[in-house]
């Protein structure tokens, strides 16, 4: 079975005044169709660089990024992105914001169909009735929901989420986690989630990739066995506690604060 996303031996360095700064080195990540991979790692280890590589906004110095059996050489319209900053256009209504990608990407949808789809997505994330509001009238969590709808409107193959819930308070964040499961059920996508939150990673993803400290390589891969949509209670089971322990230990190794031979506490 071919993977939808294949990252093979990717190496990348930024040019700085004090010479090249390697951020990624020998990165290997594979995501099957319909899979959802969370990428965790220490701060500044190049996670955001990874999203830009997958989106085709940057080219790696070495190695290959494959999407759908095609090598990524530049931006492609089959990608949807959401960032920590929801970057909604304040001069547009929420509905018009969600419709933005369809103004760029060629679409078979008519205007009415596109609007219908936008309304459907907004309702799915719980923003029914806010279609004609401006972003400034919405809370941070609501804006992030709208940003999610915009990332999905053109039915992308790949959804790239770069810490989309990072700036939200804990309760709003948990709300959005559940929304993500609901969305994935109705609008299946293949996803890559960059996050700092280990609970978020095991709650949303079916595979968690731990990156090492800079320059980042794939240090550890944890599969999260799951059956159907999860609930918040699933985070408080012994299995979840064990997964979190493993991940926390791996992060400590990545930060250089623990030795690989240490057994997980």
């Amino acid at each position, binding site marked *: 079975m071919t993977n939808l996303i294949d990252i093979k031996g990717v190496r990348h360095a930024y040019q700085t005044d004090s010479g090249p700064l390697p951020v990624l080195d020998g990165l290997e990540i594979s995501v099957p169709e319909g899979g959802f991979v969370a990428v965790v790692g220490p701060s500044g280890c190049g996670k955001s660089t990874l999203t*830009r590589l997958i*989106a*085709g*906004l940057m080219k790696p110095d070495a190695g290959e990024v494959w999407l759908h059996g095609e090598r990524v050489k*530049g*931006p*492609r*319209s089959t*990608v949807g*992105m959401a*960032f920590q*900053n929801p*970057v909604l*256009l*304040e*001069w547009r209504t929420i509905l018009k914001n969600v419709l*933005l*990608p369809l*103004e*760029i*990407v060629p679409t078979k949808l008519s205007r009415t169909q596109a609007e219908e789809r936008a309304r459907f997505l907004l309702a799915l994330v719980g923003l029914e009735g806010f279609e004609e509001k*401006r972003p*400034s009238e919405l809370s941070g969590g609501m804006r992030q929901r709208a940003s999610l709808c*915009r990332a999905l409107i*053109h039915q992308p193959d790949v959804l*790239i989420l770069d810490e989309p819930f990072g700036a939200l308070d804990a309760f709003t964040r948990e709300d959005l986690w559940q929304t993500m499961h609901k969305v994935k059920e109705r609008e299946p996508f293949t996803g890559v989630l960059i996050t700092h939150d280990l609970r978020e990673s095991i709650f949303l993803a079916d595979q968690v990739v731990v990156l090492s400290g800079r320059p980042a390589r794939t240090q550890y891969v944890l599969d999260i066995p799951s059956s159907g949509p999860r609930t918040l209670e699933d985070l408080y089971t012994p299995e979840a506690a064990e997964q979190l322990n493993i991940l926390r230990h791996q992060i400590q190794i990545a930060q250089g604060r623990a030795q690989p031979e240490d057994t997980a506490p």
Partner: protein
Amino acid sequence: MTKQLRAIAVPMIAIVILLIFWEWLVWFKGWPRFKMAAPSDLIPAYQRHWDLFVTMGWQTLWRTVLGLFLAVIFGTLLGMIMGFSRIMRDALYPILVGFNAIPKATVVPIVALMFVGQHDFNTVLLAFMISFFPIAVSVSIGLSTLEPEYRDILRSLGASQATIFWKIALPKTLPEFFGALKVAVTLAFIGTNLMEIVSPHGRGLGALFDSGRTNSDFPLMFAVLIALAFLGIVLYYIVVALEKIFAGWAERAPG
């Protein structure tokens, strides 16, 4: 009192109070008419010279607006160049700052000598020179501070630079642009009047002011100042109205 009524009544009352205070001050100090004019002196001045006020006011107005219009076009283009290219920004910024620092009153005689007799051109040129700077700076800052995520959202879908400019960069810069335009409106008036007063050629309110000065006609001089203030207010609020239409989204609901 309704909101709209208050929006008009409050500034009107403030203006009336100011005029009363002015009238009182002149009366209280006992200033003669060759030293200071009172508001009550202005009415006869307007009556006597009304035709001049209309023609010369129009001359000042159209030259200011034309200069401002050119400043908007040139300033926006310059701002775009500096906003999109780091090298151009580094290259042009010091020159611009230096140019802006030159008092424009010193430029007047140079311009007047360079283009002798071309009064309209000279005046428009000065209005333009004095007012394009804030527009160029604000547009360049607006474009260069655009968060990279805004670009990425469209770029990741394969949008061209031109599309990104029209859909995101331009509208996002509008609030800064209008902020600068409000400053530029007033500056353009200063530019026009500098030319009209320093290098008088019998046109515009500045020339009318100058003839009042040579005759020690204080009521006329003050009448010109008030007329200039009036034109300035009108133009300013036209910009405010345009801002409401094109960048009204940037205004947060009060409270």
